[in-house]
């Protein structure tokens, strides 16, 4: 059978059980086509069949017979398609894993639209309809809208007119050349599959994997504590054989009673997840750093308390409740498990070299920490471990440190003597790759007679499955001044999959409850919610954001009082506060090669724009054009760089790049003795004189030092000052069918100077999109009897699509960070954690009904507004 792929006649196999996606990726090595969901949902596998986009992960390869197939590598007939230039120019991507699929679909749409309508921009709805079958977990949709509209309008036809795109690696990502770990397949590579527990709680008596190479992944206690827990991994020369070997594995379980319902796990009769002191000490955690100490009672751990005049707070609230004080706000809020589900699944390709060195190609957000942990785990000198992560298809917190896929792939590589590749299936990704734990949060908030905040109590019960580490309530210590407060955190454990840090861990849960309660207080006091926050919140940088938000026409001109009719518009806002972290050991090397300044640092780029930050700083400091600066990243053999966690990357990397540039400039002055040093750009002669020179820049100390004088266990340091955000959200509620449609959003961010403005804005836009997912759609659902995850595909676990994206305006308030070297800090977390509460407050404004449970599903909304 024959087909034509990108103009080349090609033979195809006759087995219809092979998918077209497998054929182009594995058979032809055209890895620009991705497979992320394997269910026809996400669009990353989209190909053109005779010019029409089609999902290739569900298509038998035999269906390609006689057709003209175009992959992302062939879009534009060998040249760049205008839509590829448009995606680059409008920064219509972050991690880039979904980008080839979007590009293929958008190219067909743009060509068709221009043929039918000439060079005109389509409406947002037309673009959303055309791209409805694509998901971008980073939420780069605003750039995608802009890029597609501009390409349709003919703004990107001219190759030569293009200036350097805002993202350093844009060209690789729009062309499909960007190589991710899932695309790495060395010669002779074996495939590995993880075999997982089918029981929520059992003692594993024995495991029989036949003769397949295998590695045990179960702990020494031989106990499984959730459905989906890794038991072992097996490897075989092909993926099909590895799957078959996994199916042959026989596990002998001794079933034990399980506690899978977070609502009843506290009862005395519930089976205990961690019955012994030793087990409790080794309990799984979802915390980013350590876990604060607390007592256990059965399956409930806590409280871990923080507060300030806690007894006063409790007394004031008790008194107010007894006298029926209308200024007392009381509410119980609930948040679900939210799954990271980056479009590139967890993946690792491991290989041991002849001298015993370990090479890991890994989809990781911590290249350096992974290398260090691997060296420790396998007792190797650090320099014998080599971690590579050229491009990483998203992480959001779920890909940090040494993980099961790294251990399994490396052990199996040792057992087989071959490179071994392990890629999570989407079902595993949605079950056991971590999640933002759910929480139940009870809030009491009392306004005093003068309208001040008189007292606050919060009890938070975190549901991280079998893992502990909730610090939801205690994060409330950092906001709204110094009013008396009692803040208590509890972990409620069950036999369900463990959580992981997720973009603003604990913060999103806290703000869903707190920012709606503050809104409620404002309504009770008859005060503007922004004005109330401005009085209660002592943070000066956020004051600037409140002033900006209060002046927005959407806020000033919002109608007050309940709306009527089927479609109701509402406007809500929420504030957010987050820590400033940095990594003091960060270094950037600059080396001059062939007249180009090459910046080298180990940092991974998970879509946040780490490369662009380094490139922009070096270009700016040295006055160089884009083509004279290259960035080499994503390798543990390069200079030390931080993990992409805790919003710390840019605040660490930017200053180190600038320091390196300053050193190179000094060296240039030395070499050009007599020539003026000045601040002009390095010219060709200066670069020629620097050929071969290598300098290293470090991260210079902030003025006034840090909150934590020593580095934390993960290399981080807490710096001085808090980042802030204020989100204003406009929604339209359909009271007939129960939907909430976010229409416009304004995101004010206070994090100092932006090093790379467009990627920074992109990340803030993505924060809004993810927050909308949290507010309206995302909810991991588990079987109440077995604890098995039911939402194990991207149809049932619902992340926002392009049509769910409002028009977003990002505003950066850049002052207030003058004490920080480089003047700017991270935005990844503060830009998303308050969004859901802004949606909740907008829904209240529209309907008069305040949602307490996330997500705000149609059935809940209809019930809440009393539809009968």
């Amino acid at each position: 059978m024959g087909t034509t792929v990108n103009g080349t006649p090609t033979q195809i196999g006759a087995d219809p059980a092979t998918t077209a996606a497998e054929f182009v990726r594995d058979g032809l090595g055209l890895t620009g086509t991705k497979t992320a969901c394997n269910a026809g949902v996400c669009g990353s596998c989209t190909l053109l069949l005779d010019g029409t986009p089609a999902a290739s992960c569900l298509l038998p390869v035999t269906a390609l017979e006689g057709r003209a197939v175009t992959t992302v590598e062939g879009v534009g007939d060998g040249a760049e398609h205008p839509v590829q230039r448009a995606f680059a120019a409008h920064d219509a991507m972050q991690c880039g894993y979904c980008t080839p699929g979007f590009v293929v679909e958008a190219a067909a749409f743009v060509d068709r639209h221009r043929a039918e309508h000439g060079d005109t921009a389509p409406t947002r709805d037309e673009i959303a309809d055309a791209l409805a079958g694509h998901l971008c977990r980073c939420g780069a949709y605003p750039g995608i809208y802009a890029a597609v509209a501009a390409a349709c309008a003919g703004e990107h036809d001219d190759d030569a007119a293009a200036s350097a795109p805002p993202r350093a690696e844009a060209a690789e990502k729009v062309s499909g050349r960007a190589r991710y770990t899932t695309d790495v397949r060395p010669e002779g590579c074996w495939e590995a599959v993880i075999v997982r527990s089918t029981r929520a709680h059992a003692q594993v008596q024995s495991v029989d994997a036949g003769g397949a190479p295998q590695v045990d992944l179960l702990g020494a206690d031989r106990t499984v504590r959730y459905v989906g827990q890794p038991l072992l991994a097996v490897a075989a020369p092909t993926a099909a054989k590895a799957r078959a070997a996994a199916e042959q594995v026989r596990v002998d379980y001794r079933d034990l009673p399980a506690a899978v319902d977070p609502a009843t796990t506290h009862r005395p009769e519930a089976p205990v997840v961690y019955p012994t002191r030793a087990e409790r000490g080794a309990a799984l955690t979802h915390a980013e750093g350590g876990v604060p100490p607390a007592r256990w009672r059965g399956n409930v751990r806590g409280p871990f308390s923080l507060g300030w005049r806690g007894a006063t707070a409790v007394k004031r609230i008790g008194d107010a409740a007894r006298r029926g004080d209308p200024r007392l706000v009381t509410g119980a809020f609930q948040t679900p498990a939210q799954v990271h589900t980056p479009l590139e699944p967890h993946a690792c390709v491991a290989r041991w070299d002849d001298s015993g060195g370990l090479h890991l190609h890994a989809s990781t957000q911590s290249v350096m920490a992974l290398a260090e942990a691997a060296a420790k785990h396998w007792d190797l000198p650090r320099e014998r471990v080599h971690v590579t992560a050229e491009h990483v298809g998203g992480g959001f917190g779920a890909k940090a440190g040494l993980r099961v896929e790294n251990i399994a792939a490396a052990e199996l590589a040792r057992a087989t003597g071959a490179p071994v590749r392990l890629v999570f299936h989407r079902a595993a990704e949605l079950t056991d790759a971590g999640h933002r734990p759910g929480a139940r949060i009870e809030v009491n908030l009392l306004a005093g007679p003068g309208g001040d905040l008189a007292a606050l109590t919060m009890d938070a019960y975190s549901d991280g499955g079998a893992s502990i580490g909730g610090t939801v309530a205690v994060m409330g210590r950092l906001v709204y001044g110094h009013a008396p407060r009692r803040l208590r955190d509890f972990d409620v454990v069950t036999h369900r999959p463990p959580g992981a840090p997720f973009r603003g861990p604990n913060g999103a849960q806290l703000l869903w409850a707190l920012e709606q309660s503050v809104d409620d207080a404002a309504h009770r006091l008859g005060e503007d919610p922004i004005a109330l926050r401005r009085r209660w919140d002592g943070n000066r940088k956020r004051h600037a954001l409140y002033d900006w938000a209060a002046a927005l026409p959407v806020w000033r001109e919002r109608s007050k009082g309940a709306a009527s009719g089927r479609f109701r518009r509402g406007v809500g806002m929420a504030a957010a506060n987050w820590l400033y972290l940095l990594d003091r050991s960060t270094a950037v090397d600059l080396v001059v090669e062939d007249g180009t300044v090459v910046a080298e640092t180990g940092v991974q780029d998970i879509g946040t724009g780490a490369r662009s930050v380094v490139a922009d700083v070096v270009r700016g400091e040295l006055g160089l054009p884009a083509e004279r600066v290259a960035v080499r990243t994503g390798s543990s053999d390069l200079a030390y760089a931080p993990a992409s966690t805790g919003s710390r990357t840019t605040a660490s990397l930017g200053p180190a790049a600038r320091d390196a540039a300053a050193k190179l400039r000094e060296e240039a002055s030395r070499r050009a003795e007599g020539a003026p040093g000045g601040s002009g750009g390095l010219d060709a002669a200066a670069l020629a004189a620097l050929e071969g020179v290598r300098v290293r820049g470090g991260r210079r100390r902030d003025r006034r030092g840090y909150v934590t004088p020593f580095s934390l266990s993960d290399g981080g340091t807490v710096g001085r000052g808090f980042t802030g955000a204020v989100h204003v959200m406009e929604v339209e509620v359909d009271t007939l069918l129960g939907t909430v449609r976010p229409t416009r959003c304004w995101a004010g961010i206070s994090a100092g100077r932006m090093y790379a403005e467009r990627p920074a804005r992109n990340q803030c836009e993505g924060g809004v999109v993810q927050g909308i997912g949290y507010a309206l759609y995302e909810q991991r659902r588990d079987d109440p009897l077995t604890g098995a995850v039911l939402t194990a595909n991207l149809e049932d676990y619902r992340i926002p699509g392009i049509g769910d994206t409002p028009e977003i305006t990002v505003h950066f308030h850049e002052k207030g960070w003058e004490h920080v070297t480089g003047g700017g800090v991270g935005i990844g977390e503060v830009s998303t954690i308050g969004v859901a509460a802004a949606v909740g407050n907008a829904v209240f404004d529209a309907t008069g009904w305040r949602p307490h449970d996330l997500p705000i599903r149609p059935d809940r909304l209809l019930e809440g507004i009393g539809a009968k």
Partner: protein
Amino acid sequence: MARLSEGLAAAPFTDLHRVRELRGVEWRADGSARIGSTTTVAEIAADARLRSAYPALTATAGALATPQIRAVATLGGNLLQRNRCPYYRSAAFDCLQKGGDSCPARAGDHLHGTAVDQGADCVAPHPSSLAVALLAYGADVEVEGAGPRPVGDLYDGSDSTRDHVLEAGALVTGVALPVPAAGESAAYRRATSRSRAEWPLVEAVVRVVRTGGAVTEAAVAAGAVARTPLRLPEVERALVGASGPDAAAAAVAPVPALCSPLPQTGYKAVLLRDTVRDALERALEPQGGA
């Protein structure tokens, strides 16, 4: 393919794309259409003659799934697809559709389950949107080696073990539609939480023919609420003869009483009523819906 890779479907299977006779739209002398079973959903949605003859069908075809699925999904595949219940799709569970002896969704999570009891223990709604539209047209399904049968007879709402009544190896060759109704206006509506690309919580297809403002003919069908697509004759009867701005709201009033929801699907009774109402209001607009 997804179920194959999960081990839920058994190879071998046959790729029918080369059987050209199964593909395309054929117009008969009486003005009615026959659509081959491997015609893609996108081809149905984009066919101008189908759109003027059977607007509810093309509107439904254009609204289901996503563009790149519609480009490869076929009419026959859509009618015979398996249900979306996560218990059925997950290898971790036995269920009535997989030879088990009980329905785990009943005792477990059935938020997206049925809301109309047809006598089955299985609670998975039928997923085919095209079947809802074809039911509203009273179309016939042609099965090789057997006579044509009404589309409704492809399904048995009391059977918990399968999503359609055909035996393995049976081949749907096409669908025959009746002679188009002149002056029909139609609408398709699905209730979802996201704006696009989501399986419906409930869905509705409506067709109305009006003479001088009053409805003379009406067909109303609903999906995602029962083990099979459903006609709603109570609503149809209430519509005939109705006119004016409140016709839709009045006609759908009996819908909740027709439902027999499960503990977690009570919302579907109200949502079905209002989704049908929304579709009817569109179809009854002066210009007339899709």
